[in-house]
């Protein structure tokens, strides 16, 4: 996002608490006059309000996730409070808000592909994997409430499986991150369940293109858009594809039962229908999976430390 915006001549104020990311991803902009980086937490309302001064658009991507590894409460509260903090700043600064929701909100909905009007099909509330989807659904409601009551123009973007250079290289980044890591280290790839669950993966430049279009489209206010690549692939196929693209021999796969997560439910299939983003925003994903994965593998190879005991 930063690179694309600076290239177009915008001023960028970037905020991150660096809890899940690394300054390495933005180092190259540090010398740019139109770029300012502030290490701050989105939960710090006063700081966000201060930084939002003069901002035409607030792009809110900060979030907490993966409640299945604990932290269901943090996932719930950080996401909702963080989004509110941004919405309050936008209200005061008269800015637009474009924020990241997730394809996970469609949950177990069996009707594929998902359009934006599809029902949000959640499992039991004592299965904490749903805490992330629930937090994002609340974010969407808060955003639309701010638009209705205070006139803050908001756009919710439901991302489908973002990946690419700069991704978090652990589970936080998604399955491709850990598969690439395993392949590069020649270690078995951990696959949850039977690996037949399918997902769609969207290369980062396509997501960035979608966000930019939403930021500057007059038609995007008050809307939800799916942003994703419609190509569907099973997790098992993804792992073997990554192994092959990494130039390794026979794939090493280790199936991990869902039972190890406690009470858990996975989403079986997840594919976006993107006609709305096409019609409203002219959005069209351009980078195919193999092409995107090759770039990502190359990048991840360059940032991975293969030394003893490193991750």
């Amino acid at each position: 996002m930063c690179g694309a915006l600076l290239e177009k001549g915008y001023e960028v104020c970037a905020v991150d608490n660096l809890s899940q990311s690394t300054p390495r991803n933005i180092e190259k902009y540090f010398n740019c006059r139109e770029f300012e980086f502030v290490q701050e937490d989105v939960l710090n309302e006063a700081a966000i309000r201060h930084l939002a001064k003069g901002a035409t658009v607030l792009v809110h991507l900060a979030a907490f996730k993966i409640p299945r590894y604990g932290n269901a409460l943090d996932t719930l509260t950080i996401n909702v409070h963080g989004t509110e903090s941004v919405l309050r700043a936008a209200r005061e600064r008269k800015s637009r808000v474009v924020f990241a929701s997730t394809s996970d909100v469609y949950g177990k909905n069996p009707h594929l592909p998902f359009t934006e009007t599809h029902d949000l099909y959640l499992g039991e509330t004592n299965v904490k994997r749903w805490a992330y989807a629930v937090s994002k659904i609340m974010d969407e409601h808060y955003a639309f409430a701010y638009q209705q009551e205070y006139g803050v123009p908001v756009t919710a973007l439901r991302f489908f499986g973002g990946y690419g250079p700069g991704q978090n290289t652990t589970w936080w980044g998604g399955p491709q991150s850990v598969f690439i890591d395993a392949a590069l280290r020649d270690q078995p790839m951990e696959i949850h369940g039977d690996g037949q669950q399918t997902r769609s993966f969207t290369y980062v430049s396509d997501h960035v293109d979608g966000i930019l279009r939403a930021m500057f489209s007059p038609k995007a206010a008050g809307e939800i858009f799916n942003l994703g690549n419609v190509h569907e692939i099973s997790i098992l196929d993804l792992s073997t594809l990554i192994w092959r693209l990494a130039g390794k021999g026979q794939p090493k796969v280790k199936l991990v039962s869902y039972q190890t997560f406690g009470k858990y439910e996975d989403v079986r299939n997840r594919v976006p229908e993107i006609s709305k983003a096409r019609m409203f925003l002219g959005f069209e994903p351009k980078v195919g999976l193999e092409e995107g994965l090759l770039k990502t593998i190359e990048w991840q190879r360059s940032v991975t430390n293969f030394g003893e005991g490193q991750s």
Partner: protein
Amino acid sequence: MKKKVLITGVAGLIGSHLGKALLESGHEVIGVDDFSQGARANIVPFLNDERFRFHHDSILNVDRMNEVSEGVNVILHLAAQKIPRYGGYLRTLDVNVKGTDIMLECARRANARFIFASTDDVYGKGVDPVFTEESGLVLGESRVHRWAAAASKIYGEHLCFGSAEKYGLAVAIIRYSGVYGPTYQLSKLSGAQDLFIAAALSERPIPIHGDGSQTRPFTYISDAIDATLRVFESPYADGEVINVGSSAQLSIVNLAYLVWRLVGVQKKPQLHFIPYTDFSRLYEDPRQRRVDGSKANYLLGYRPRVGLEEGMQMQVQWFRDHLDKIRELNPECFQAGEAPKS
């Protein structure tokens, strides 16, 4: 053992009856209500009870909540906002989301057990013919405000389980289904039957949203209180979600007929159908809702006792006996043109 209990939303339908029942069992009750939905008249009967202390305040007032929850053994968190389709979208979210967050924090400080009032509305457009506690929770589009209340209750349940996980808090979640009974507050909150009775008593047409074929469960307050006390008393309920309702369910049109007949209006029932599009863009109403009560039955020994016709008869009688006061407190429900919830 006598306990010190905090009830939020004590002036609401369930809160007021629960407060009375707990006081009768000898517990000490601290009640909180801001009267945004509840009515002062509902708690007047025990307002002077020496074991009852009332705080007229909002659950969003953090400092005050920390104060009043000091030393309590149990928090029954019933305060909530509903039905954002009538406006107050953001307030609904704040009360349900932040309010629950605040009360859970109080429970953590006081090391109190937390009983959370959720609703069968969380099943939303669920596809199961009968909703058990394991059923999927299906929400419509986030742009439809109607879903904000259900979403905020699902979020509240997750907050409870999240707090249980992180802090070891004892939490129990009750999903109430269509509870009705004596109350002075005929808000849209207390369900369709009260507004139907008010209409029938003034011989006005009963306003019905949609075609009225949508079905809903109806649970008489004494049953809901019985179940709540079982949850209150039983450790079995910790960490559980429990449906509390009754198998009695009927369509909104049949409810209107029943009410009309029980009121005894001397002419043919008059129904006034209001299309959904009149009050909300993109509005969706779940078609049918049947809730399975086996878990409450087997786990807690709860069985609803009051039949639909019997309960509605008592409700009509309550109206007749308190008509002046009810009319005085809810003038809008006795005038033409009001669109109640159905």
